[in-house]
């Protein structure tokens, strides 16, 4: 079970809801993924096209935990404003702190992220900051009292997978709160790898929404996360330099 704050989740896959080819495909992808936590962005309505359907309104929101992000914020104050707006919907108490510090890499601003996390914790939010894979930053955020830490595997939407497994492993080993690998996952092997490293969960979006068949990829990611987690719990064998025979060396029929 994944435990965030005082809530428990069966699924360790968190799914983003951006950039799907259609609502139908998205709905089916969400269903087969069995994800319980879905991320959303907070934006101005286009009131002149207000009759357009909205994905959230097509979902049975009682079945999911909504995780609004603060994407678009560049400062702690902007992130706090977005988080308050999201909470005012009455639909969520969690927030993914996402404060971009660089437009080209979309890497998070560590100073503003730390500041926003502290402000939001003081207001009673369940705070999940998206961070770089900085070990000390993760420690500082945990000391503040955040409810999970979400280090990126590689830049958002890049699909490059886990570029620094060592840092992620350090973060996971030192952390006593859930570590959810967020951003940069490209394929099921990346998701499985994150889980084998001991991550408590994986958050991904483009890897599914941008796949040729998003529904099939959603299923693949579900299985990859489960397989990676089982592998981690089972404890893998250690690597050896040379071969070690798996068949007995006694009673050979030759010689």
């Amino acid at each position: 079970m994944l435990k965030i704050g005082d809530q428990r989740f069966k699924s360790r896959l968190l799914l983003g809801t951006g950039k799907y080819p259609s609502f139908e495909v998205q709905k089916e992808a969400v269903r087969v993924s069995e994800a319980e936590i879905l991320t959303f962005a907070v934006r101005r309505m286009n009131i002149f096209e207000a009759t357009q359907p909205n994905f959230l309104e097509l979902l049975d929101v009682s079945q999911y935990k909504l995780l609004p992000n603060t994407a678009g914020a560049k400062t702690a104050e902007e992130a706090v404003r977005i988080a308050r707006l999201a909470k005012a919907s009455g639909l969520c108490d969690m927030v993914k702190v996402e404060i971009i510090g660089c437009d080209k890499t979309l890497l998070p601003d560590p100073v503003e992220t730390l500041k926003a996390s502290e402000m939001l914790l003081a207001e009673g939010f369940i705070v999940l900051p998206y961070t770089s894979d900085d070990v000390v930053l993760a420690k500082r955020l945990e000391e503040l009292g955040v409810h999970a830490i979400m280090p990126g595997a590689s830049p958002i939407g890049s699909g490059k997978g886990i570029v620094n497994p060592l840092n992620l492993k350090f973060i996971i080993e030192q952390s006593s709160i859930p570590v959810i690998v967020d951003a940069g996952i490209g394929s099921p092997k990346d998701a499985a790898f994150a889980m084998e490293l001991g991550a408590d969960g994986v958050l991904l979006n483009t890897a599914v929404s941008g796949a040729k068949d998003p529904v099939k990829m959603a299923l693949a990611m579900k299985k990859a996360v489960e397989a990676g987690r089982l592998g981690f719990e089972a404890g893998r064998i250690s690597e050896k330099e040379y071969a070690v025979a798996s068949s007995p060396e006694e009673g050979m029929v030759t010689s």
Partner: protein
Amino acid sequence: MTIQLNGQPVELPEDVKNIDDLLRHYQLENRIVIVELNHEIADKSKYTQLPIADGDKVEMIHFVGGG
């Protein structure tokens, strides 16, 4: 009356007097929408008690797909 709605000037009919009227005017009363009036989040339970006046800044916010 003219207000700034989501950053754009809009002209409203006479009978739109409060936030509740405004949502009805745009047929948003049953939608998931968060309203900010002059930079303050509007309490859902008080929409009928929140009057809007000429020059007010109103933001209508919702959730969209995102990662």
